[in-house]
């Protein structure tokens, strides 16, 4: 079963068309990289998948549940890390996680236990009682990922999660998300414009100017396009230098 299926999705803001007939799938337990330059439409796509914007044309299905018809059931399966930080800076890391858990209907005791567990996995348990205002950018990102995992989602959406992180921080985050995919069978949609975040066996969706211009596994893109590297393939597909 597909964790996520996007079918013929289009969207515009006024007269500006930002997505045109976007279709792709993310299989259960797979890591899918949504690759696109800034302004390609990745964030708009995330907003449509999460129901922040209403998709007038096309369909979004999460584990076969149509987002438009049953948003609550679809959202219950999703963990989301938005491009913009969404932590409440006046609350501690633990309080942010418990707030999210309450919104997902988790009982207090379970949410306390799970917040410690998730923060521990991401190596920020020692900051559980610190206000997120006092955390570094990398620590905030890890808290956001821990928060997205509080309700044990089967699909994790990450919109440019490594933006603002240093190289070791980016690598650590990537390792952790890949481990989630491998060990817990979580499907991941990871939006980025950093080509080095693509691994050979990842599924890749290349988005350019609101259109999907290539889908497949990363190890196929180079031979299929007859170029020397993923970077060259991306440049060829998007017309970027």
């Amino acid at each position, binding site marked *: 079963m597909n964790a996520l299926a996007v079918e013929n999705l289009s969207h515009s*803001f*006024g007269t*500006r068309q*930002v997505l045109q007939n976007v279709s792709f799938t993310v299989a259960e337990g797979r890591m899918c990289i949504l690759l696109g330059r*800034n*302004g*390609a*439409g*990745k*964030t*708009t796509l*995330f*907003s449509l998948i*999460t*129901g*922040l*914007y*209403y998709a*007038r044309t096309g369909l979004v299905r999460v584990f076969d549940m149509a987002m438009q018809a049953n*948003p*609550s*059931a*679809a*959202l*219950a399966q*999703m963990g*989301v890390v*938005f*491009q*913009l*930080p*969404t*932590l*409440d*800076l*006046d*609350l501690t890391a633990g*309080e942010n996680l*418990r*707030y*999210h*858990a*309450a*919104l*997902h*209907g*988790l*009982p207090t005791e379970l949410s306390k236990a799970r917040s410690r567990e998730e923060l521990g996995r991401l190596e920020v348990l020692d900051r559980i009682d610190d206000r997120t205002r006092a955390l570094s950018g990398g620590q905030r990102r890890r808290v956001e990922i821990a928060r997205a995992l509080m309700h044990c989602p089967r699909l994790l959406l990450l919109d*440019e999660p490594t933006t603002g992180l240093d190289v070791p921080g980016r690598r650590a985050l990537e390792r952790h998300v890949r481990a989630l995919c491998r060990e817990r069978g979580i499907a991941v949609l990871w939006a980025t414009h950093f080509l080095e975040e693509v691994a050979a066996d990842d599924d890749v969706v290349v988005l350019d100017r609101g259109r999907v211009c290539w889908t497949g596994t990363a190890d196929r893109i180079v031979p299929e396009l007859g170029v020397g590297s993923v970077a060259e393939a991306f440049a060829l597909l998007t017309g970027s230098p």
Partner: protein
Amino acid sequence: MKVRHALRALDGILRREMLRSLRQRARLFSAMVRPLVWLAIFAAGFRSVLGLSITPPYQTYVLYEVYVVPGLAAMMLLFHAMASSLAMVYDREMGSMRLLLTAPLPRWYLLAARLLASVIVGLPLVYLFLFVARFWDVRPPILGYVAVFPALVLAGLMLGAFGLLVSSMSTQMENFAGVMNFVIFPMFFASTALYPIWRLAEAGPVLATIAAWNPFSSAVELIRFALYLRFDMVSMLVVVACLVAFFLAAVAGYDPGRGLWSRRGGEG
């Protein structure tokens, strides 16, 4: 929507509002000081200028301080509602509103929970003000403090729903200065909070008509009557009708298919 899930979400939203409120001490302090300044300075100065005749629900001549306290209690609710509305615009700009709106619950419920939580957090300060006002000889019957509770909740919900509506229409925090100037101040001053209708009629029939139609006047009168163990049916109906209208409009404003959310561009 499961009831247990909905209650846990409400509990979470309420806790968050309380924690944020307690940690923003400057805001708490100014929320308490503002009506006291009005009572201690404005009312003291105006008591000699503004003579009041017998005006319901009062059964005798009252000091200006007595008249103005229910209006100041409503003012606290109004400013609290607008601060809450500003917090929602801030949350939207900072991104944390996304978290609330992507929770697996109907959007109308999430907005209602946020509204209710905001009112609950604001009420203790209003009660504190009403008790402190006793030092200015504003001493309604003790039972009035109980009777005024539903009136404060209803008025708070109505003003909060108005704030929610304003936040659904505001695209940026900078626009909020305009909201203060063109919404909050006219709403407060063109009402029965500071002067009775007949006083306003003396100044001009247009102003009196505006005050009579101003839903904030209904909130003030609902509180005033309840505090003195009287029930103002017309004010209650106006407050309830406005609450429903403002809330429905706010829900439409936050609707992903109709509101600002669908019209604004994403980040990339």
